[in-house]
């Protein structure tokens, strides 16, 4: 028990009064490795290049393939262009094929993401803030439930949810997709951790002393401090809702309410049925259009969510 205490006190004793040269030397040596002269590792460079290639090649394939016609797709090499450049034609066909149902799917997806991911983020912020900043009986139980819920994949709950929603008469309506999307245990957990770090209790007390009610304290004091965390959670829930496949697959039967994932899959599946038309060019183009909004969201919000993820990692 005693020895660690001794070393700690020794260190803390030497640090402030240590030799003047020791601190700068430490700094320069750190710099030499990190910023001025990064240590190069051939192995690491090769590995990261491989990972980069692995993640970019499908994207490049998708972008190139979207410029090909159905025939061009099968006669040309996957990573290079075909003679016919059909991108504009493909895009217009994607939006007009089957009475323009693609636009409807796009709007549906936006609706599900808007209501589902937006609502999930809102609930996660409220819940995370409350759990981080208010002391009440049962907090530990809530913690256990949330951690447990993070571990259950949404896919496993889809069928029980279907039976429940079916009894409530909600299947085959947008609500069947929106309501389950409102729950994001991981988002709640993230907000909880973030709120603990980002909102100083002293600041809240100061606001209370100045006469602000709880609602006002939350919206005017806490919410701006939580912004990076909110963006992070929003991105996570957005991606989850945008890409959600199994839940709508189980819940929705009416193609008019399909999100893009289901719609594109049904276009893809029609190549495998008697008399069905193979429209791989439209599936590919539709997939490209589908991921563009997500890419845009990540690029636009990236600086917020990076700072959000790093919150609490450095002691200030």
């Amino acid at each position, binding site marked *: 028990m005693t020895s660690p205490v001794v070393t700690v006190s020794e260190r803390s004793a030497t640090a402030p009064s240590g030799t003047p040269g020791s601190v700068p030397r430490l700094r320069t040596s750190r710099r030499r490795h990190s910023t001025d002269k990064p240590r190069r590792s051939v192995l690491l460079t090769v590995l990261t290049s491989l990972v980069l290639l692995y993640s970019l090649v499908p994207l490049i394939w998708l972008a190139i393939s979207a410029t090909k016609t*159905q*025939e061009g*797709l*099968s*006669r040309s090499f996957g990573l290079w262009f075909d003679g016919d450049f059909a991108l504009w034609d493909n895009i217009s066909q994607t939006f007009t094929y089957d009475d323009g149902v693609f636009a409807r799917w796009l709007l549906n997806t936006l609706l599900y993401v808007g209501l589902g991911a937006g609502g999930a983020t809102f609930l996660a912020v409220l819940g995370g803030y409350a759990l981080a900043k208010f002391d009440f009986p049962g907090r530990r139980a809530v913690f256990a439930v949330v951690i447990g819920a993070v571990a259950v994949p949404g*896919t496993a709950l889809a*069928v*029980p949810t*279907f*039976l429940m929603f*079916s*009894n409530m*008469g909600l*299947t*085959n309506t947008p609500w069947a997709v929106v309501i389950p999307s409102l729950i994001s245990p991981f988002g709640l957990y993230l907000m909880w951790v973030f709120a603990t770090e980002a909102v100083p209790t002293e600041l809240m007390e100061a606001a209370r002393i100045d006469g602000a009610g709880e609602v006002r304290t939350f919206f005017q004091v806490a919410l701006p401090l939580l912004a990076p965390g909110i963006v992070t959670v929003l991105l996570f829930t957005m991606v989850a809702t945008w890409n959600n496949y*199994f839940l709508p*697959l*189980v819940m929705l*039967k*009416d*193609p008019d309410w399909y999100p893009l994932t289901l719609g594109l899959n*049904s276009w893809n*599946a*029609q*190549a*495998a*049925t*008697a*008399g*069905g*038309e*193979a429209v*791989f060019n439209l599936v590919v183009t539709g997939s490209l259009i589908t991921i563009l909004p997500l890419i845009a969201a990540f690029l636009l919000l990236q600086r917020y969510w990076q700072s959000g993820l790093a919150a609490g990692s450095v002691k200030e």
Partner: protein
Amino acid sequence: MPKHSRRLLRGIGLVCALALGATACGGSDDGGSSQKSVSEADIQAALEEGGTLTVWAWEPTLKQVAADFEKKHPGVKVDLVNAGTNADQYTALQNAISAKKGVPDIAQIEYYAMGQYALTEQLTDLKGFGAEKLSAKFSPGPWNGVKAGGDGVYALPMDSGPMALFYNKKVFDKYDIKVPTTWAEYLDAARDLHEADPKAYITADTGDAGFATSMLWQAGSRPYTVDGTKVRIDFSDQGAKRFTDTWQKLIDEKLLAPVTSWTDDWYKGLGDGTIATLATGAWMPANLASGVKDAAGDWRVAPLPQWTAGGGASAENGGSALALPELGKNEALAYAFVEYANAGEGVQTRLDNGAFPATTADLQSTKFQDTAFPYFGGQKANKIFAESAANVADDWSYLPYQVYANSIFNDTVGKAYVSDTTLTEGLKSWQEASVKYGAEQGFTVEK
């Protein structure tokens, strides 16, 4: 028609298993008989009164049929919904039936899946609607399919898939290979072709339950015997041996393209000549014409190769019917639509849009038989298809849980395509797994 996505199938297995657990899947608990009596006058009255019909189907030509029907009967609205393709739709239908909510008035069901719904009385027996007198209208294979091994008539046949051999004439001509008329010649052609061009294969097969059962059907094997809830599964007959002997050689000598059917790779192979033949249903021309446009003019149709020289045996591959789920509403009106689409004016509409009929009058009509297919270089391919349809044996039956059985095909028989397991061993383990599942579901299963 069969589709392969194992990820998806596993998901479906899960859904069905859970749905089964929740409501015992099989059980219809209405207790009453599903035999209803609806007269011609009732049907007329329903047509005049009108209403909305929900139809779950993925068959593309039904769109026009529905529009025509609405025009003819102004009070009727047909809500045509593509609730998924093949097994996806069966899962959806099973879920809706389990939940007793959202069940469509009419559902498209393939012949191989018919037994599952018919036996458990989830479909309305159309005998009470006078469907039995339509039996002479349909070719024997599909009609046998809608009877699902029982006494009832559980649907009206929509299309059929009498098998034929589609082959790439350009490839055959290039290497001077004779179009095979027997499966022995087919094996030789496979060897010659692959030797002439190591990139070319006689056909692509990575294990396909629909194809294998059709081949067994043609070879004279009758692995499934169904009598009510008594089921016998046996893959050891002579017919099965015929099939496995030949197909094992194709596998062992690596003469089958390792490409899964219906993928983009597969369409590509059909287009560039590396997949030279397809033994499949007569509905294939529409798929070739839309999916492999570049190869127009290269392909031709020949009668399905025989197991004995000079034979004329054929089988069905794919094909589906329109059924009335027991929990659907508006039965008289629903029957009127099904009859219109599958036995009435709708048939011609669907033929004009490229569907393949199940009605003998259309199969035998000169207009149908003389249709020249520009895609097949002007060949009158329907003659071959019609002959095949007439040669389909009508004593084949599928399992009452064939959808499940097919979903485990790749885990059992599929091993023969990728490992040292033989086809015979694969079929044996498929048999065992099917027997086990059947027993668990309450069937009396004999091996």
